[in-house]
């Protein structure tokens, strides 16, 4: 009987909320899973319509929020791990938080973002009765190098996913990014229905490839892939000239994005592909997007003392480059970078050398902070030293890099800057983003 478990889990949830321990997103689930490892199976049977899972290195939180909004707009009740806790314990916690004290779960859909490594474990925990028209949709967004010390390398994750898909029932539907070679390849020879999404917009091609790419060799024959154009990192219109493997034609390739940045176009397409796959009318999807507000820390806007602030979670080279391009296209002049090296950020900060800080215009005075403020300042120093200076002017004085070990002081400095009308853009790693929110909003997550 799971009722005592639910009671216990909910108590833990409220206690941690009252005491502001801040682990309300994982503890209740952790304890419940310890006492009953099958608890998610027990919960998931109660979902009336089905489950949608979103996996990928970047865009999970935003995409799952978009899907949730569309479903809610359709009048469905949705269970969603919107705190971003996306391991098994976070998903169990989301159930416990939303189930009633008597064990009743009045939800149509479960929408879950799932950690890359946890995907196989999570998926094997769901139980859905397809004979009763329940649905399982899985969205794979992309795979980039990210926290290699924790996740391992992208090939290892892709292999885990391939094996997990093999174990899925044939009724499941798989939504794949056609423009990420490694993701597209997941759709080869599988028994489930596949829907591809991707961009067909040559205007968005980059002038040249970025340095940080992970999947630019053919997964079929090992030959170097050729690109008609690249949107970012290794995402683009690819083909292999040796074996003929090529980017599948995307069924969903055009949709106005409610958020800026090419990466958000992909998140939008993934969400729309999912909604269409569920049979939701395109007019309804459009309506649902009109009042979309970003998830915490993902282009989230905050105003403090009349200063507009936009927070961009930026946690790996592909995402960081996209954030940089997006804010520069919005005319960013005041930028605060925050780099932490705690467990949710990855302990290794080497990746900042794969970020193209060289695109920062010379007139910007970057402000830096975080646990690894000196590493970040050093990276930015080397991106500016020679770059974009007139010839023979190597020794010109540079715009300084402002270094604050103390994040509060960095924020004070930025917010009190004399140019009130300028938006402050904050690019921060995960725990740094939470800290920024805590200082600015008094709480870390929602």
């Amino acid at each position, binding site marked *: 009987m799971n009722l005592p478990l639910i009671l216990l889990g909910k108590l833990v949830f409220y206690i941690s909320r009252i005491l502001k321990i801040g682990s309300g997103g994982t503890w209740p689930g952790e304890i419940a899973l310890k006492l009953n490892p099958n608890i998610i199976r027990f919960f998931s049977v109660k979902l009336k319509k089905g489950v949608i899972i979103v996996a990928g290195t970047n865009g999970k939180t935003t995409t799952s929020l978009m899907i949730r909004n569309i479903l809610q707009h359709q009048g469905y009740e949705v269970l969603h791990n919107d705190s971003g806790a996306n391991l098994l314990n976070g998903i169990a916690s989301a159930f416990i938080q939303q189930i009633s004290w008597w064990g009743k779960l009045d939800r149509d859909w479960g929408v879950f973002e799932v950690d890359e490594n946890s995907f196989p474990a999570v998926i094997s925990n769901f139980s859905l009765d397809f004979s009763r028209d329940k649905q399982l949709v899985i969205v794979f967004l992309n795979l980039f*190098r990210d926290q*290699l*010390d924790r996740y391992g*390398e*992208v*090939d*290892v994750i892709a292999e885990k996913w391939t094996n997990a898909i093999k174990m899925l029932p044939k009724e499941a539907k798989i939504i794949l990014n056609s423009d990420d070679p490694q993701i597209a390849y997941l759709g080869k020879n599988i028994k489930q229905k596949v829907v591809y999404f991707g961009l067909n917009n040559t205007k968005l091609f980059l002038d040249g490839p970025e*340095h940080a*790419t*992970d999947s*630019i*060799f053919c997964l079929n024959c*090992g030959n*170097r892939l050729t690109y008609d154009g690249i949107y970012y990192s290794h995402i683009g219109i690819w083909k292999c000239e040796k074996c003929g493997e090529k980017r599948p034609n995307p069924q969903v390739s055009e949709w106005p994005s409610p958020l800026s940045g090419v990466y958000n176009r992909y998140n939008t397409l993934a969400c729309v592909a999912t909604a269409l796959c569920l049979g939701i009318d395109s007019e309804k999807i459009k309506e649902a997007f009109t009042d979309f507000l970003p998830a915490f820390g993902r282009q989230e806007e905050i105003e403090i003392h009349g200063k507009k602030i936009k927070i961009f979670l930026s946690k790996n080279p592909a995402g960081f480059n996209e954030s940089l391009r997006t804010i520069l296209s919005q005319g960013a002049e005041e930028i605060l970078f925050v780099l932490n090296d705690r467990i949710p950020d990855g*302990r*290794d*900060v*080497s*990746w*900042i*050398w*794969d970020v193209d800080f060289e695109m920062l215009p010379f007139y910007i005075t970057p402000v830096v902070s975080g646990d690894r403020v*000196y*590493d970040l*300042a*050093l*990276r930015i*120093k*080397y*991106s500016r*030293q*020679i770059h974009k200076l007139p010839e023979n002017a*190597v020794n010109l004085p540079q715009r300084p890099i402002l270094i604050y070990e103390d994040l509060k002081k960095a924020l004070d400095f930025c917010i009190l800057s004399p140019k009130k009308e300028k938006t402050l853009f904050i690019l921060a790693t995960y725990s740094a983003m939470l800290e920024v929110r805590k200082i600015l909003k008094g709480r870390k997550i929602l």
Partner: protein
Amino acid sequence: MKLKIAWLYRDLMSTYGDRGNIICLTQRCQIRHIDVEVKNITLETSVKELNKCDVIFMGGAQDRQQKLAGGDFLKNKGPVIKKMVEENIPSLFVCAAYQAVGHYYRPYKGADIPGPGILDLTTKHLGDQAKRLIGDISAEIINIKELNGKTIVGFENHGGRTSLGAKLKPFAKVIKGFGNNGEDGYEGAVYKNAIGSYFHGPILSKNPHLADWLIGCALEIKYQKDVELEPLDDELEWKAHDFMLKRL
């Protein structure tokens, strides 16, 4: 003066911010008005290009990419680099490249992966249950007379354990961290002017003395004369270095 840097397999073996080393070397030359050119040496590049270079760098990789590079390295580039290293060309091999320049890499299953034996070392993976050696690391350089006693800081992340041949000298003595095998307390290897190290990714960024040693060495070998490098403003480099030394 002019230097040509060979960057081996930048599109295959540059997983952990390895590019940082090329950026550091390049800029530290440019500020001193040393002409510098980076040659991308990858699968399709002829070894003739490699032969013209004055410094060699090769970085870390994922398994699949390392396999893709492995055949070409063993057959084409490796033997040329071996000869260049014998001719005192300064070289830096980090992470996967450090393992690749040995005699072989023994995975926990499957056959040994042979290497060109540029450095007299072997690497073994002890099985999928064996702990990966991951974390911040600091060490004290030994066996490079200009740098002995100086510290280096960085990050390591490797499953393989490396043992050096009887005559090969370690690069450094571990202060905090694991190093070659987590057992003997040593890190990396030095042979002539070649350095192998588990300090992965941008090892040179917080260790400017090491970057300058490579540059100075390359110029002295190329121009056959003593070279005194103009000192640079490295306040930030040393701040980042000392910050990690203290924190560890």
